């Protein structure tokens, strides 16, 4: 009985450790800007109807069709932690993808073109 509960406890600890390692790895990859393609910053569920409408009317997209005109190079964008992490858009007053774009895009003075 004691042997069984000890085994169960060790199993739980192993699973917990695996979860912690996975979470830490994921956090580090975001912070270092190694987030894989397909990063979604503006999830509709997290936005109000007005915010969704604004993004729709402004044609916000998570991936800019023009590599020279991305949120990262926009004056209204504040970068997040790490080059590829979600940042903040002053116009939408919410999250934006560094590789995204909308119709309000305006070049920032220190613009860097994505390659």
């Amino acid at each position, binding site marked *: 009985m004691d042997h069984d509960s000890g085994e169960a406890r060790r199993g739980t600890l192993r699973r917990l450790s695996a979860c912690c390692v996975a979470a830490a790895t994921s956090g580090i990859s975001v912070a270092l800007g190694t987030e894989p393609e397909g990063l979604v910053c503006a999830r509709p569920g997290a936005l109000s109807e007005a915010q969704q409408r604004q993004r729709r*009317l402004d044609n916000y997209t998570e991936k800019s069709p023009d590599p020279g005109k991305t949120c990262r190079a926009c004056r209204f964008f504040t970068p997040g932690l790490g080059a590829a992490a979600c940042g903040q858009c002053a116009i939408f007053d919410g999250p934006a993808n560094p590789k995204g774009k909308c119709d309000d895009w305006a070049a920032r003075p220190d613009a860097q073109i994505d390659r």
Partner: protein
Amino acid sequence: MQQRSRLATHLSLAGIVTGSLMYSLAAAQAADPAQEAATAATHAGLAAQGAAIEQVHMHLHHTVNCLVGPKGQGFDAKEANPCQKLGNGAIPDTTDSALKAKESAALAKAEAGLKSNDLTAARKAATEAQAALK
């Protein structure tokens, strides 16, 4: 003796909690009318460049919302309020009468643009609203 010391401790703690709460409330209510007006001007500028009338109107709504604030006449709760973290609206938060007059003039232009369904006229009104805020 011990009771008196305990009472003093309780009173001190109550004072600290009350002070912290008052400080938090004051910080939460601190308005930035200059930033509200600047944000209103930014949105008027975006409206002036809108490619479609819906875009122009949307940004003009944002301009109006920033100028009048959530309790002001003309505030549209269905539209986003880019100034919600900045205060209660540029006009109510501004104490300088000259600035308030400029903001009211900008509001009139923005409202005129909202009434028009003509893209050119609405964009012109937006340009004038932005200019009034400079």
